[in-house]
């Protein structure tokens, strides 16, 4: 300033403070642990956690630890590495340890050299240079460029590091530059610490036992609100919700699960519905990660409507299994769909109304059995469909199935049906005006005896004088006639 030059950015107090902070911060130092003996993933993570809270678990057998600051406790980098190996040996682990100023260099060296390797600061590229280029495949098995490098005659990491970056990018694109940075021992990204899974649990003791779902809904809201806030802070959603209701000890034995008139029997219910030691538990597997309080509360209440607790509740516990949250990118060009929360709630409501087997999406079965289908769970998340707005000039004639074929009396003349009548209301029947057939189908006769075992039938499509068109069949085993479907 005194020399008349304009002030530079580095002269500002903020920049000066940043420089002081950088000067006071110890330079980065990483240790990479590569387990040679497999099957010790948990032990390796625990070892890393014992030395530093800042560690990243890359694979079950590969962990990077930020060891800066440990020199005041353990000594120089060599001493830290030796201490790591000693601790590992005490836990039955065989490790290859590398200590370097960059995480990438430590990772490559931990794969390449047995025992302990310590690289001087700024010597990472030189330490990596003689190593074979194929090591990159071990560090990252998804590396796609190694065959190309070998065809070019690039054998070592030093040769890869020396290639001109512009030419490399022109031939291999951006990944080529990433691999070159690895060969030079440069970090493409900072260390991302692995955090322990947090337990999302909340419970409330009730001074007075409550009965009925309405008061329980207030308790659930109170428990779920802080849990969902924590989920949001951790960018997590609920994959499953476990509800445990501690019940008052004396309750009517007739309402125990399994008893007549009581709740669902545990063996017949896929969800857990057990009263053990006065605790009634339910588990909701959510089809999509959720963290909306109202949705979670509604789903729990709808489930409890179908499976009510057999006695008054004196303690409520909610445990949530977390899962990474959904990342959604909406576009302007796709149709608005119901959100997963809306669909989950809708399906739960419909299930409570009609039953679980009545809701879903139809799916065709790979079978020749007429009318065969299965109902699968309706997905709550749908991708973008390729829009096809083609119009057609005609329709496909389709069937309405009678799930249980309607017995019919069929008069036959000349090998063809001439009249169809039934005793069922709504199926008046009449004279056959036209017919097509017969079409003989049979199958699954090898599956055994019984009505569901197989089929053997002659099918006809008949147009009757009452205006209806039916698909009828003669069961060749029982010689009975049935209406199978209506052509509509």
């Amino acid at each position, binding site marked *: 300033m005194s020399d008349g030059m304009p002030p530079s950015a580095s002269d500002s107090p903020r920049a000066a403070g940043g420089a002081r902070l950088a000067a006071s911060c110890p330079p980065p130092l990483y240790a990479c642990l590569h387990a040679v003996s497999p099957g010790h993933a948990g032990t390796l993570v625990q070892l890393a956690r014992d030395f530093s809270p800042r560690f990243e678990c890359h694979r079950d057998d590969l962990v990077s630890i930020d060891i800066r600051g440990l020199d005041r406790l353990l000594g120089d980098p060599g001493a830290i590495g030796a201490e790591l190996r000693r601790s590992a040996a005490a836990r039955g682990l065989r490790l290859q340890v590398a200590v370097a100023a960059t995480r990438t260099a430590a990772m490559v060296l931990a794969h390449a050299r047995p025992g302990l390797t310590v690289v001087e600061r700024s010597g990472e590229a030189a330490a990596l240079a003689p190593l074979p280029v194929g090591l990159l495949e071990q560090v990252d098995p998804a590396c796609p460029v190694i065959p190309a490098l070998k065809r070019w005659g690039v054998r070592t990491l030093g040769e890869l590091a020396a290639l001109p970056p512009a030419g490399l990018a022109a031939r291999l694109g951006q990944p080529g530059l990433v691999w070159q940075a690895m060969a030079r021992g440069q970090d493409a990204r900072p260390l991302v610490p692995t955090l322990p899974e947090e337990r999302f649990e909340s419970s409330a003791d009730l001074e007075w036992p409550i009965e009925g779902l309405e008061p329980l809904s207030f308790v659930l809201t109170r428990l779920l609100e802080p849990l969902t806030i924590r989920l949001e802070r951790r960018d997590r959603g609920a994959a499953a919700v476990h509800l445990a209701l501690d019940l008052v000890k004396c309750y009517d034995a007739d309402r125990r699960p399994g008893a007549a008139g009581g709740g669902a029997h545990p063996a017949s219910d896929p969800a857990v519905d057990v009263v053990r030691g006065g605790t009634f538990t339910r588990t909701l597997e959510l089809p999509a990660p959720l963290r909306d309080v109202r949705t979670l509360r509604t789903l729990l209440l709808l489930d409890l409507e179908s499976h009510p607790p057999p006695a008054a509740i004196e303690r409520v516990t909610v445990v949530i299994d977390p899962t990474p949250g959904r990342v959604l990118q909406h576009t302007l060009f*796709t*149709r*608005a769909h*119901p959100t997963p929360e*809306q*669909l989950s709630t809708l399906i739960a409501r*419909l299930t409570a*109304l*009609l039953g679980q087997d*009545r*809701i*879903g*999406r*139809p*799916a*065709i079965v790979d079978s020749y059995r007429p*009318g065969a*289908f299965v*109902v699968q769970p309706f*997905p709550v998340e*749908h991708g973008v*469909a*390729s*829009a096809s*707005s*083609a*119009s*057609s*000039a*005609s*329709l*496909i*004639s*389709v*069937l*309405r*199935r*009678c*799930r*249980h074929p*309607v017995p019919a009396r069929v008069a036959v003349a000349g*090998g*063809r049906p001439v009249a169809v009548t039934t005793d*069922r*209301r*709504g*199926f008046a029947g009449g004279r056959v*005006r*036209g*017919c*097509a*057939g*017969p079409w003989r189908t049979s199958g699954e006769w090898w599956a055994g005896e019984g009505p569901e075992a197989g089929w053997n039938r002659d099918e006809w*499509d008949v*147009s009757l004088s009452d*205006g*209806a*068109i039916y698909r009828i069949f003669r069961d060749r085993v029982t010689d009975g006639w049935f209406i199978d479907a*209506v052509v*509509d």
Partner: protein
Amino acid sequence: MPTLARADLESLLRARQLDRTLTTALAPLDPSDDYVVAPAGVTALDASLGGGFPRGQLSELIGPRSSGRTSLFLQILAAATGRGELVALVDALDTLDPASAAAAGIDLDRLLWVRGHVVTNPGMCRDVNPRAVEQAVKALMLILQAGNFGCVVLDVAEAPAEAIRRLPFTTWLRLQRILEGSRTACLLVGAEPMARSSAGLSVKCERARRQQPGGQGGRSDASGPGQMFKGFDLELHVISARGRRREGVCVSLATEASPDV
């Protein structure tokens, strides 16, 4: 003073969207905007209906058995899933044939199928438990309240007329109120008109009266051993179209048999 009170009353009614009766003409729909109408995917029908079935309104598709009503509503659902929409079918008496739905072109992954309980007598019959129809209407309300479905169909075509008439008339008004302002096209499929003045568009299906050699109803009566069912001709009559002035329009269509059905 009475004028002021009337203005206040009208503004309140407007705020609650009660400023018109069900028979008041609605604003004309833009046939080219498929956010306003749901095209059926049949060229002749869409042209006659002014783009398709209106969204945000309760429409009806009525007709007797074998009149082509099922073919038509499956085609409407297929067109909706083809546009990437989610659709729902409330199948009151559980008569859907999934193979037919797939043959009609419906993306089954986007079809929410709600199968009604038929308790009293199994199968397709007139002696249906009335609760099946009531439950189906409740399920339809839940689906409409969830919102954002492109097309929702309530199929009570095989239900006895008494079960439909037993439903309170306010049921249809309530459904219409839920639908208003939404992007959902709701279709009631039955043997007779049911929603009465709540219906936005009512289309009646019937077999073509044109006599063909071999019997009634056109090509369906290809008879003889070894011959295949070929399909039939049908006519669609628009019997009411609230606010669209298309009453009396008649469309002739044909159905074709699919080898997958």
